[in-house]
């Protein structure tokens, strides 16, 4: 900051910079070459394997890929819709459950018990099972107001299954906020609720953003499980396409689609984690 705008680097400094550049160039070269070699070996092993021709025919058929792509893309449209709706609901349910479990008011005991039971059940039951139970069990009850639409049944199942996980992430974040923050808020005259809402919860959420985004990525993949309900999302479409010609290429196309959708979450997680780490070290 107080460095003069114009200054001439000393010879020693120039020499140091040059040496650093040379070293960096050498490192890039070494890692580039070794990566290329590893990939080349892998590709050769796969391509020269005895079964490769058959595998290529059933899994990597260009014609099949092109033919199935439009249907699978439409499926991904539904996948993204289910994902967005379920994620929004999960965040709400999870935050409410986490806060109920955190609140110290004795009057809330029955609600707290319910929250604990819900968290345990939702985390303990495999998502696929929940999808079956909700998807086929709920409509069987023939209750008023229960949606019969598989889309909404799927959303309910995913929300139920992920709400418990995400609420634990929230709870960990909220309880990790230092008690002095409570004292700080209360001593200004803020009520318990205001301190929770304006001071503790925002800090708690900030702290758990990386695992939270990681759970988004996981949900993104688990939307494939709702195919069993006949929701026309990407995996279900891919299965239909696969059965048409008994060729597995559509599944590979779908897999690539899921990866493409999940990568941004992975990068976002990295980015958030890095930013948090920097802030903890006071670098921002």
């Amino acid at each position: 900051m107080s460095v003069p705008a114009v200054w001439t680097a000393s010879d020693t400094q120039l020499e140091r910079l040059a040496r650093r550049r040379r070293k960096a160039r050498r490192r890039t070269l070494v890692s580039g070459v070794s990566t290329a070699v590893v990939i080349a070996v892998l590709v050769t092993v796969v391509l020269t394997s005895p079964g490769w021709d058959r595998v290529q025919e059933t899994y990597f058929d260009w014609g099949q890929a092109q033919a199935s792509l439009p249907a699978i893309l439409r499926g991904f449209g539904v996948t993204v819709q289910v994902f967005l709706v379920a994620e929004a609901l999960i965040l709400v349910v999870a935050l409410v459950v986490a806060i109920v479990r955190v609140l110290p008011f004795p009057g809330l005991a029955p609600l707290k018990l319910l929250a604990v039971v819900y968290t345990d059940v939702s985390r303990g039951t495999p998502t696929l099972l929940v999808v079956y139970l909700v998807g086929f069990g709920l409509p069987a009850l023939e209750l008023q107001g229960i949606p019969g639409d598989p889309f909404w049944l799927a959303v309910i199942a995913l929300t139920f299954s992920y709400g418990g996980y995400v609420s634990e992430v929230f709870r960990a974040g909220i309880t990790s906020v230092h008690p002095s923050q409570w004292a700080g808020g209360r001593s200004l005259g803020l009520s318990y609720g205001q301190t929770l809402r304006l001071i503790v919860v925002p800090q708690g959420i900030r702290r758990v953003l990386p695992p939270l985004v990681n759970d988004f990525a996981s949900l993104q993949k688990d939307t494939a499980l709702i195919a069993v309900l006949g929701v026309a999302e990407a995996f279900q479409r891919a299965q239909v396409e696969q059965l048409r010609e008994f060729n597995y290429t559509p599944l590979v196309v779908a897999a690539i689609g899921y990866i493409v959708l999940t990568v941004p979450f992975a990068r976002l997680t990295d980015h958030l984690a890095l930013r948090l780490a920097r802030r903890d070290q006071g670098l921002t």
Partner: protein
Amino acid sequence: MTLLAAEGVRKHFGEHQVLTGVDLSIEAGQVVCLIGASGSGKSTLLRCLNLLETLDDGTLWFDGRDISDPRVDADEVRRDIGMVFQAYNLFPHLSVLDNITLAPRRLRGLSRTAAHEYAYEQLTRFGLADKARAHPDSLSGGQQQRVALVQAMAMSPRVLLLDEVTSALDPELVGEVLDAVRMLADEGLTVVMATHEMTFARDVADRVVYLHEGSVLEEGPAASVLGNPSHERTRSFLSRFLRG
């Protein structure tokens, strides 16, 4: 006029009787320094005065009103009693400006513009004008404590409780925070301050209260308690600070 008073205040944590009957009365406009060994109950007493702890026994009076009555709205009382702690007063997720304006905007119905105007004015007064947009983590400890003072003062409290506001600071930063406290005291603010800064107590305090094992052992004008204590315990406690 007595602004704040404690009468037979008791508080225990588990088996430990921390406050064993504190009687204390603070006149409006006075600066009262609370001294005593570590563990004597200074912080606990301040937290009780701010209704952050529930009393086991005794009464607290604020402006003639019994604020230890359970029917009293503690949130409302705390608006008028400011408090600054040893450290970590500020909210790390908010800018300095938002730290200062949050409570007055929510609780005093101050408009955004009015709150910002006030905040900038006070930050300038305390030499922090360029820090308004910064986050607390990027400030030095001394700057953080000065912002904390501005934050507490933004609610226009009638009394300010300070709990060892300088003891977490590097020695060279203590002065700037004490100067800020002195500035507020000079303006007539009522201040109750737990501190180990005996020189500051001697120079600024109207009265000094010596707390020993949870009750007031000795109190009086700063000059007499610090200069000529009547109890042997006070004397030996002080000798650790005022040597030389």
